[in-house]
């Protein structure tokens, strides 16, 4: 079979920051795919018994893993905001270059706002029940 060029032949394009938002969507998605393993492990530990759960919490509460959880929160906020941008595109809206650039900026701003809000509550404040 003849080797034909496949879709991400990125080298031929001049860099535009909308490209960064596109690749970041994939990257944040993959980061959360890896997070699925951790979520499953946490649920399984809760299903198994107090000792397994204590062991899981000890790992999840350690410094490095807390940073990982923060990275997952950031990835989630970004993937959510940019995912809504994608769904809007799927409705055939906002596809002009200028609109796409503007929505990229909105997504970055909304991501930071959401991440700071969730991050503050999750890691520092806690919510009174």
């Amino acid at each position: 079979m003849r080797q034909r060029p496949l879709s991400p032949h990125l080298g031929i394009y001049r860099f535009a920051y909308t490209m960064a938002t596109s690749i970041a969507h994939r990257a944040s998605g993959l980061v959360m795919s890896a997070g699925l393993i951790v979520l499953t492990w946490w649920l399984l530990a809760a299903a198994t018994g107090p000792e397994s759960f204590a062991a899981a919490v000890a790992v999840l509460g350690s410094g490095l893993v807390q940073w990982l959880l923060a990275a997952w929160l950031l990835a989630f906020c970004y993937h959510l905001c940019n995912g809504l941008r994608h769904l809007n595109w799927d409705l055939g809206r906002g596809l002009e270059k200028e609109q796409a650039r503007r929505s990229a900026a909105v997504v970055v701003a909304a991501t930071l706002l959401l991440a700071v809000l969730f991050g503050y509550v999750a890691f520092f404040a806690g919510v009174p029940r």
Partner: protein
Amino acid sequence: MSLRSPLGKVLGRGSAKQGVSHWWVQRVTAVALVPLTLWFVFQLIHLPTADFDSVRQWAAEGFNPVLLILLIGAMTWHSALGAQVVIEDYVPHKGAKVAALLANNLLHVVIAVTAVYAVLRIAFTTFTAG
């Protein structure tokens, strides 16, 4: 000279005709995941996550097990489809690509079944008030 008929030559060519379904399921799960993930993140923030009993109480009470299972289903499906596209785009070697696609699907099924099993086990072994 080939003994194959012209029809035989062209049959089986072209796309696998599954692109539309892949695209559509990716969107359906995306829409479902907007409320489900927001619900989950809000719940997690509220939860004293280090406490065994309160995590189990939360996972078992009311409609939560159902929402958790829906969340797991939508997330693993969405994740499998997304990772599949990344593998198809970035793994150039054909054999490695097929192996990675197989591993991707198997891993996601294992994750989904394990997580659902965990939720059901918590739900069926925890007594909740009301």
